[in-house]
């Protein structure tokens, strides 16, 4: 009698644990990693490690050669120029992308690299240190005429996975509120080997619906959503706002959280963001004091960066309980 009662209970507990485990696994499988393991350093041969930093032609006589992505370049340039003037240094800065910065770092032609993504495992090169400057919201954008202004994270994932392909299927939407039903999501699957960014929405390219339209550039992303009444896409707010058609798109809330509100990001109420890092060399032949001084200078003057770049500085993240290893952001609040 006693055994008869215990057995169903044990089965029930087992089923509950199994289902919760499955759900947890499913959720984890959808959301990609926000950061890579800082302990894993990509191995490169001795010849590479012994190779000194040699500037390219564009920075031949410079004290520092810096390669920055297209978000950090305009944001940091005034501070870098001011620092160079104060220290009487020649600092050459080149605008590029994460890939270009990674390329310069790999070929050892730049003293500092700037990235709009957290480092992937392959980006952690021997002797290279990452300094997190901050994060910025990755806005979900829809056409400005679209009445939708808020989606849950689940709805968003369902849309990009192709499970919801019609606006009227969303709660509160009717056929009349938007002429045609078909949702047209646009994706830009950049930096696939790096964590964070779009991978916080869906971990990998195979999780996205095969019917989505893939674009190659930020410009194409904003242009397509601006030109498509039913379009939806994603991009950091600064890139959206500087686009000539910025008034034809709007960023919407996720789970009721506005991406423009920094508090929503620090509390993770708004869950999509990009991480901005710059790198310095720590190994003896490549280590430059002025490079570290510049990084410190930038970190100390983050509040002077124009607010339109929507950068939430690392100091705020530290206060909000985000995890850091030395200067690098490595984890979300527990």
């Amino acid at each position: 009698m006693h055994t008869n009662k215990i057995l169903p209970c044990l089965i029930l507990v087992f089923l509950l644990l199994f289902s919760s485990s499955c759900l947890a696994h499913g959720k984890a499988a959808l959301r990609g990693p926000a950061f890579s393991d800082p302990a894993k350093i990509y191995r490169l041969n001795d010849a590479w490690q012994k190779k000194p930093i040699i500037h390219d032609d564009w920075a031949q006589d410079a004290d520092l050669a810096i390669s920055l992505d297209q978000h950090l370049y305009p944001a940091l340039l005034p501070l870098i120029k001011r620092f160079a003037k104060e220290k009487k240094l020649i600092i050459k800065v080149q605008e590029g992308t994460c890939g270009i910065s990674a390329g310069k770092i790999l070929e050892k032609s730049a003293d500092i690299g700037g990235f709009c993504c957290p480092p992937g495992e392959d980006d952690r090169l021997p002797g290279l240190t990452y300094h997190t400057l901050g994060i910025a919201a990755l806005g979900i954008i829809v056409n400005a005429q679209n009445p939708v202004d808020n989606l849950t994270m689940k709805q968003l994932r369902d849309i990009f996975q192709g499970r919801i392909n019609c606006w009227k299927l969303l709660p509160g939407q009717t056929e009349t509120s938007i002429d045609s039903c078909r949702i047209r999501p646009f994706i830009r699957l950049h930096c696939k080997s790096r964590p964070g960014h779009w991978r916080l929405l869906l971990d990998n390219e195979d999780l996205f619906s095969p019917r989505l339209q893939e674009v190659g550039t930020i410009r194409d992303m904003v242009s397509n959503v601006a030109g498509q009444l039913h379009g939806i896409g994603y991009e950091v707010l600064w890139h959206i706002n500087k686009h000539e058609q910025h008034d034809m798109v709007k960023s919407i809330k996720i789970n009721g959280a506005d991406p423009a509100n920094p508090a929503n990001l620090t509390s993770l109420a708004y869950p999509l963001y990009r991480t901005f890092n710059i790198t310095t060399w720590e190994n003896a032949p490549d280590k430059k004091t002025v490079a570290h001084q510049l990084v410190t200078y930038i970190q100390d003057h983050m509040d002077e960066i124009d607010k339109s770049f929507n950068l939430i500085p690392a100091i705020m993240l530290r206060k909000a309980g985000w995890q850091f290893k030395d200067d690098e952001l490595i984890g979300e609040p527990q």
Partner: protein
Amino acid sequence: MTLSPSKRRTRTPFNFYRRYSINTKIIVVLTILLGASWISLDFIQGRQLKRLFTEQLNVMLQHHAQEARILFDKYTRSFHSSNKIIVSQKRFADYLKVKTPRWKEREPGEVIFHQQIPPWLPKPSVLRTLAHSQYYLLFDSANNLREVYTDQEKDLPTSLRNSAPTLRRLSHNQATMTEVDGRPFMIASTNFYDTEHKALGTLTLLSPINNDFLYSAIEGLLPAKAVALINDKTHLVIASNRPDMIGEGSSMEEIKKIFLLTGKSFFDYGVSDLKIHFVSLVPKNEYDALTSAAHEIGKKQRAIITLIMTLPLMALLFRITSRLKRLTKTIDLFSKKYLSGKQNVSQTHDQLLLLEERFTDLTHEIIQTNVESQNKYRALIETTDTGFVIVDEEGMVLDANQKYLRITGRANFGEIIDHNVQEWTAEDNKVRHFVATQKCLKSGNVSDLEIDYETPSGSVTPVEINAQMIEQEGQQIILCLIRDITERKEARQKLKRSLAEKEVLLREIHHRVKNNMQIISSMLYLQSMKALEPETIEVIKDSRKRVQSMSLIHEKLYRSNDLACINFGDYIKSLTDEIAKSYTSQLCPVQFNIEADNISLPVDSAIPCGLILNELTTNSFKYAFKELARGEINISFRREARQKLILRFKDNGTGLPDNFSVASSSSLGMSLVQNLTNQLHGTVEYKNKNGLQWTISFPAEHSQS
């Protein structure tokens, strides 16, 4: 402004331009302006057209570059997708998992090169649908390159082989662009696993980014559109779809010489360590030809517009010059007719200048005439002995002459100009003066107004004012002629006094004559008292009556206001009364019916006429009514035919004898009648018709009505 014709026409070095007509000059100027405008407009329009074209091309080519880049993006993605498709093919799995791969038979480091499709790749029909790769590399799980398929008769670049692990790391699960041996390559890698998810190896697709690659990537674009990939670091062409024009390795500077480089964008994939610009280009000769064609069209349109605008302008010009000529002629005629007509002979053929000269001459003439007129007027009013003053409607002095200044007794014009005339008008004349001024403003003139002016010293000057109101520039002004009438007034007073004295004297004379005649009458009466014969008494009595009738005239004269004439009607009544009184005791009653116009006769006519009437009345009393119980005498004195006076006398008596004749009568009375009528240059008629009827008519030379 003073116009001086002589100064105006001083010769200058630019006088030659006066020789030509305005039509000629405007045509020349218009031609120069049109030419200059044409050249300027051509230059400006050309530049604007080029700028516009450049802007439009820029926009178009930016879109073009974007379109081309989107195609390139897709191709890049498909490069990675192709890799994944190959790995997922059954042929690939069979080769690696089912069959024993060929490299198993070889040593690591020994690479099998395939020039034909190897068994691990899809069949050509499938492979053609995928992105074209120059190299298909198969690595084992230990990162050793084992097999290579390439359609190029080339070995794999050594550096590529050596850096294979790094490249595969960069391209893992994605397509990336990187440089190998200084040349850009597109690489995509995909791991493949056994059934237990154990890595068996990696498939890497690798292709140099060159003209072929670019052509494959953008084959959807029209070949006419030139695009090129530019290395941001070296600024050299990596690839182009028009290698005939844009060769690999061409520098940007070289390209810019023959192309307009407008559209430009670069990749922001984040997985590429190369910064490559995608540019669209337009050959300059095509652009120039297009610009020139548009420019030519613009030129033709400009020419037509110029012609359309110029012809009416010329017509208008000739119309204007024709009107100018007519206007000049009218001025000449006006000058000749109303002014001196002395127009200077002009050397110019310019109608406008000629008109200007004529107009200036005319103005000069008018000014000259006006000045002369003013001088004449001033001289006239200054030389006359009459005061002249112009006042406004309030009586304020606007202008005056010296005489007026003297009349007012003021020292200078400052004391009267802008002063009111009432200031020097005598106190008791001010109202009258004011009323007269108002009357003049209403009726237009005032004549012979006599008032007194008071000088500052207190003396009074009587003046006579004749004024005329005129309107000048919308304002009423009064022109006044002022005469000092002090002497005239004094002379008039003297004359008046003299006249009064003479009147008294004359009245006295008439009175004395009358008195003397009364004395004569009295004397005759006394004489008749002493006469014994009745005839003598009668003669004296008749004489006395005659004297009395003359006395009565003098009495009437000195009693009348006019000492020269007497009202003859009154005289007839008085005379007939007097005569009737003298016969009341001896005769029947006599009725007088007198009808007389209001006629005054001078003494020269009155005395003869009175004596005639006396004779006729006395005669009637003596002879006419002896056998009648009642006598009747009708007397009328009328003016007829303006210059003729008729005295009719009629009684109802016995009349004259049938054979009676005045001329042959010995009666003194009848003789007197006849003689006195002759003295009056008149005629006498009589007839018997129910009594005696006399008609005396004489010219009314001195009579007054």
